[in-house]
């Protein structure tokens, strides 16, 4: 993947994005607590790059992706898309913005409406955005089907007549037909077989080159993310703990959590010996996250300061950010 210029203004800039889900209780349904799904996250996505977002299930990566698209209303913060804060947009503006940013879902079975034909599913975005002429729509649908590797006769079929991989291609075609700039791949290949995963990933890569797409690639699969991403962000309990270029992050993780995560990822080489970092305990509840550093309850290197103050995500090395007081000073610095 070619090197990107950092001087260009970012396509997306997320500033202090927060998404809390209220938990209501009592007779008057007052808010008694909240699930802190995304907690003051800031990051940028450059035009044309692929940013990977990894983390355990429940760490808020899907919520972050959806909040960026405003499919979930963020509680506070800013999302700048091409320099404009889209969180101040009204419904009409948001609908226009949908042309620019799309999403590919994890489950290829529930993400396609079972009662609609493929041409309806792929053509609906066009219809909504003003392509009323059926002939014109059909031409674009056909073109999209060709782009994602499906055939003309698939148009009149229903989703249940396709395999998982084919369905995911339909989902890709639906996301692409409006010619968006940003596509959020929310675990887009996690539900597929490994061989099909590779096909879909290669398709996504080809499409990125052909259409100049920008991806936010959300996944819990570290090796897939390493393969597709220019930069990778690691999330833990609603926060980004580390953000760096893909190669750098995988070879020199600075945050203890990233180190543990990477050591847990299997390597297809039985001869290779390496020390696994075993984390103790469970992920704390996002309703009541621990004070200070969210990770201190499980961290191998915690000090007093870790449960008194919260480390900010800051540049430890060039273009390598981590949220740890001892980033780069603890654990293994190479893998």
């Amino acid at each position, binding site marked *: 993947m070619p090197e990107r210029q950092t001087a260009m203004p970012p396509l997306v800039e997320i500033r202090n994005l927060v998404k809390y889900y209220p938990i209501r209780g009592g007779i008057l349904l007052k808010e008694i607590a909240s699930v802190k799904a995304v907690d003051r996250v800031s990051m940028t996505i450059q035009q044309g790059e692929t940013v990977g977002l990894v983390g355990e299930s429940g760490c808020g990566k899907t919520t972050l992706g959806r909040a960026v698209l405003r499919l979930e209303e963020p509680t506070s913060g800013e999302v700048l898309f091409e320099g404009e804060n889209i969180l101040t947009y009204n419904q009409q503006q*948001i609908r226009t913005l949908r042309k620019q940013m799309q999403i590919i*879902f994890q489950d290829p079975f*529930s*993400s*396609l*409406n*079972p*009662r609609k034909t493929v041409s309806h599913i792929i053509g609906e*975005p066009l219809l909504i955005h003003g392509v009323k002429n059926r002939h014109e729509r059909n031409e674009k649908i056909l073109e999209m089907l060709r782009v994602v590797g499906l055939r003309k006769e698939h148009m009149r079929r229903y989703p249940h007549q396709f395999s998982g991989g084919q369905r995911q291609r339909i989902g890709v075609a639906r996301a692409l037909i409006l010619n968006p700039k940003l596509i959020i791949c929310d675990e887009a290949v996690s539900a597929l077989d490994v061989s099909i995963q590779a096909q879909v990933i290669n398709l996504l890569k080809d499409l990125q080159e052909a259409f100049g797409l920008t991806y936010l690639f959300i996944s819990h699969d570290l090796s897939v993310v390493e393969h597709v991403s220019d930069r990778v962000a690691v999330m833990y309990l609603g926060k980004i703990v580390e953000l760096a270029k893909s190669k750098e992050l995988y070879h020199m993780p600075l945050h203890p959590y990233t180190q543990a995560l990477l050591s847990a990822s299997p390597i297809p080489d039985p001869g290779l010996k390496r020390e696994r970092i075993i984390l103790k305990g469970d992920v704390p509840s996002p309703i009541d996250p621990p004070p200070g550093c969210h990770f201190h309850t499980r961290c191998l290197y915690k000090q007093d300061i870790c449960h008194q103050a919260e480390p900010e995500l800051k540049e430890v090395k060039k273009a390598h950010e981590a949220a740890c007081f001892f980033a780069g000073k603890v654990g293994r610095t190479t893998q």
Partner: protein
Amino acid sequence: MVTSKRKKSPEDRHPLLDQLSQMWRNKTAVAGLIIVAGFVLAAFFAPVLSPHDPVETSLYDQIKPPFWADGGTKKNILGTDDLGRDILSRLIYGARVSLIVAVVSVGLAFVLGTLLGSVSGYYKGALDNVIMRIMDIILAFPYLLLAIVVVAYLGPSLQNAMMAIGITYIPRFARIVRGSVLEECEKDYVMAAKAVGAGDWRIIFIAIIPNCLGPLIVQTTLSFASAILDAAALSFLSLGAQPPTPEWGAMIAKSRALILRAPWVMTFPGIAILLAVLGFNLLGDGLRDALDPRLRD
């Protein structure tokens, strides 16, 4: 098992049609369909099929028994009532009245119930609470009593009976639709529709509702049966069809005095109601089996 069954169908049929074709394997459903089809045909071709004018009285033919009994004639196959009207003709025209009542009242409940239920399930929150509590209030009344109140307020007529029945049937549609919509809203295709910029109405009525049609079709069919029964009950209480409209419930009510002397006057409309309700119920059960994947083997 569902998918294996589906994969066998090579044509690109609409999934709902695919499921509905399952119904042909169910013998009771087919029996129900035949009975219902018989009533629909009778209602549609009433002027052709009925041998006499249903409201024409005849002083010479009062209380004639059916043709197989003593004193019966081929002229009035099922006999005549106390005003000498031909019972068979009245039954055939009565099918028309019953079906109209069923279609109009269930149609009203279907449209309003679906609208309220889908809005309730989609927007959730306070609106959902308000709508569903109103539905609970309607449900809390014995529905016949509620219908009687509505009719008593609006005045007895067939139109008001239809409206009363329709209103009392709204909650069952609203609840079913709300439940299905709540379930469908969790699926990613709803999020996907939102993501491509679809408006709320488009999401509800073009994306979600077609996926809730299964239980709705079943509920509609079963409601036809109870609407026919309720219309007959209201007419029996002279709160529905007014004489001389040939309505089955009203026919039974009018012949109560003759129950010992001429039981057939009352029996035949009773059988007609029984068959119509049975037909719709069998069809409804069959549809439920065909459309509910959990019940399929």
